[in-house]
């Protein structure tokens, strides 16, 4: 019941309450603002202004490099450097409140056992250090201890040996050693990518460091609520197109073959025909990224991408493709050739073997690898046309892989070709290529005239799981399908009718190959005599090509011709077909092409 008498005090109560609530509300708003809305600002403010708390950097891990199956080829791990404070030893030993489990005489034996020295030696070192400076707080013991050794030392430290100190440091480990070593690459002393994928994909692999700021109580426990953490972001994982098991086999095999042939170095490159992906890049010698200095510095870079050579006869197939694609010849077009001929402009061309005058077909000229015959076929089109085809097959341009230090090779303009090189360019001289470019050229033939750019990187998986696929490789129809078909048929005939046919046979499969022998520059403008850089390139199965294999060998001394590469090629192709479970050939080969008219 409301009366006039009661109305007054009640109104006052209501007003008073309202005022109280308004003030309370204001406080609540401010509180929420301080504690929730702009809490982070205030905390960082307080840390900056008041210099409160401790900030530590959280190091992110550099990303891993894995092969096509996920086998780790490079990863980051921690090693430990151990040191001790000599002047602290006496203090620790004389500490009666909490005496250490072992006195120095016993402790030194235990420490020495972990770091691989003797107790006497360690005690002598410490004594010498103390003699030099009785206040010494630093004696370096050993660097690069593994985690197991670290844990043993940590146990000792926990038992009271406070003078021990272990610092961790991140190092790069390459579990497979030299397998694809030049592709994976290595880091420099500062931990930056120096070569290979480590350098090329540095952006994906690099971590972003984080930081942690907090205040601790007297006993080192973090005061609740005082922590602010910016997490470190680990580097991404780079997946390569390589198969490390295959790569190992090829490296092992080519090293044995090269030594057997007394060669200076050798490589095997495997490219998947239908994707352009590099499946193996085997080199001998090859750098072991775990121990870069263990390999001569000349082999720190990839020979496959950085060593250029005149391809020689392997590029006769390009000349053949040029004239067929231009419509001036086919596999049966004939020329006559002697083993040595002088051309009207004064050029002198020799065949590697002496023979009477032959009336070659184009197929026959490739099978016998006749320089004279190819010179005559080359004359059928203008030099500019041949130059342009060489360029279209990738001569003189780096592959799009982007490996540091890759060489583009040299292709002189047709106008600068002299009387001799006008002809030698028909059989792979007067221009230089890398093994990678050779593989790319034959990928083009094997893939019906369509080049798919070589690739080495599959993807980059960031720390949050986002997968960034490598850019799709570009496709280019270099020669027509019908041209490629004729070249393919001729190359299979080279494999079957050529001089190495029995030694390169892969039972169950039809293959196509071409060998090349290049003179090597002597560094004084001429060529070394009697010693060559030899190569063989081929693909299988011939009826539906899947893999291109290139084998190169530098300066073999037992067999000095391209025959030196035959066994290596046969083993490499066999292993590639086995690794990828390629179906053996079931269609028989077309009838053999006649060598002569």
């Amino acid at each position, binding site marked *: 019941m409301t*009366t006039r008498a009661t109305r007054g005090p009640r109104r006052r109560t209501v007003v008073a309450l309202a005022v109280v609530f308004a003030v309370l509300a204001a406080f609540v708003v401010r509180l929420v603002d301080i504690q929730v809305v702009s809490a982070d600002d205030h905390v960082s403010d307080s840390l900056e202004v008041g210099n409160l708390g401790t900030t530590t950097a959280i190091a992110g891990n550099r990303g891993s490099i894995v092969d096509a199956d996920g086998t780790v080829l490079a990863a980051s791990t921690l090693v430990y450097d151990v040191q001790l404070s000599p002047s602290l030893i006496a203090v620790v030993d004389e500490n009666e409140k909490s005496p250490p489990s072992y006195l120095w005489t016993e402790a030194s034996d235990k420490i020495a056992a972990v770091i691989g020295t003797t107790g006497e030696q360690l005690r002598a070192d410490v004594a010498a250090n103390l003699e030099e400076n009785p206040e010494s707080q630093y004696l370096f013991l050993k660097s690069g201890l593994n985690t197991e050794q670290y844990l043993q030392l940590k146990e000792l430290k926990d038992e009271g040996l406070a003078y021990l100190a272990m610092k961790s440091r991140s190092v790069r480990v390459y579990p497979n050693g030299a397998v694809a070593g030049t592709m994976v690459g290595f880091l420099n002393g500062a931990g930056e990518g120096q070569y290979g994928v480590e350098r090329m994909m540095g952006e994906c692999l690099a971590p972003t460091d984080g930081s942690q700021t907090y205040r601790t109580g007297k006993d080192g426990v973090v005061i609740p609520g005082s922590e602010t953490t910016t997490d470190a972001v680990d580097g991404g994982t780079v997946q390569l197109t390589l198969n490390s098991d295959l790569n190992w086999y090829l490296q092992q095999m080519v090293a044995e073959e090269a030594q057997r042939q007394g060669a200076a170095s050798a490589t095997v490159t495997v490219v998947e025909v239908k994707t352009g992906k590099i499946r193996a890049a085997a080199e*001998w010698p090859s750098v072991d990224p775990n121990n870069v200095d263990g390999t001569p510095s000349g082999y720190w870079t990839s020979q496959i991408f950085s060593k250029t050579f005149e391809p020689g006869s392997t590029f006769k197939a390009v000349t053949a493709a040029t004239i067929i694609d231009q419509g001036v010849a086919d596999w049966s077009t004939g020329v006559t050739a002697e083993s040595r001929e002088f051309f009207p402009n004064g050029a002198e061309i020799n065949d590697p073997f002496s023979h009477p005058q032959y009336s070659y077909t184009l197929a026959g000229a490739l099978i016998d690898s006749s320089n004279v015959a190819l010179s005559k076929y080359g004359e059928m089109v203008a030099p500019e046309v041949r130059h342009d085809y060489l360029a279209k097959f990738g001569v003189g341009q780096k592959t799009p892989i982007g490996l540091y230090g890759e060489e583009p090779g040299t292709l002189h303009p047709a106008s600068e070709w002299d009387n001799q090189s006008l002809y030698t360019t028909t059989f792979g001289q007067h221009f230089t290529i890398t093994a990678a470019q050779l593989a790319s050229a034959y990928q083009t033939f094997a893939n019906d005239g369509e080049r798919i750019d070589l690739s080495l990187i599959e993807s980059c998986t960031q720390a949050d799981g986002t997968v960034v696929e490598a850019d799709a490789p570009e496709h280019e129809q270099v020669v027509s399908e019908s041209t490629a078909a004729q070249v393919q048929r001729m190359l299979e005939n080279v494999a079957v009718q050529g001089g190495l046919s029995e030694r390169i046979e892969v039972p169950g499969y039809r293959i196509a190959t071409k060998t090349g022998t290049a003179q090597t520059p002597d560094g004084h403008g001429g060529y070394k005599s009697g010693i060559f850089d030899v190569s063989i390139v081929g693909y299988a199965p011939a009826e539906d090509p899947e893999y291109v294999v290139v084998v190169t060998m530098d300066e073999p001394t037992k067999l000095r011709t391209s025959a030196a590469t035959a066994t290596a090629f046969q083993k490499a192709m*066999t292993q590639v077909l086995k690794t990828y479970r390629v179906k053996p050939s079931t269609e028989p080969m077309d009838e053999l092409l006649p060598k002569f008219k």
Partner: protein
Amino acid sequence: MSAEATARLRPTPQAPVREERGRRLRPVEKTAPRRRPKLAYALVALTGALLIGAAQMGLTLATTHDSFVVADLKSQQRSLGLEAQALEEQLAGANSPQSLASKASELGMVVAGTASYLRLSDGAVVGAGIGAEGVSTVNPNGSGAVANSLLDDRAAAAAATTAAEEQPVQAATAEDAVAPPESDTPPALTDGLPTPSTH
């Protein structure tokens, strides 16, 4: 305004009486007696304050305790991480193709030539159909061995451990120690082909 509300505002029958009483003024005889403060209110307020205090202390205790638990768990996580790392380090290199091939070759396994395939639909052999020759195409322990300094480190570490462990009984095992750990010639077979024991 709704009809109901209007009705509510209309003066009730008692209203005139109340007005009459209100108009009658008289002097105040004495001050109104001071009302006794109610004990219940004080108790409620006090208990409330105490409860709040207690709750806050409880929460602080809980967070502090949690902070210790977190610190504990973090150190546990760290030591487990270290253990895992130590185990991984033992694996590093051991799972490399070099090491596997070398071990396989010591067991007498070979890398053979081409493979043949059996077509299930008609049982046909696809491929050359020739058997393995029993000669490996590569020798992983030979001069061409692909380098892996991790394996060298491991071998050195293993040798050091073995030497350390065997030191007390060196005299007894001196002969074993002299024999090369890896022999090029396979051991003589006396009881047929050795088979690996599997689970």
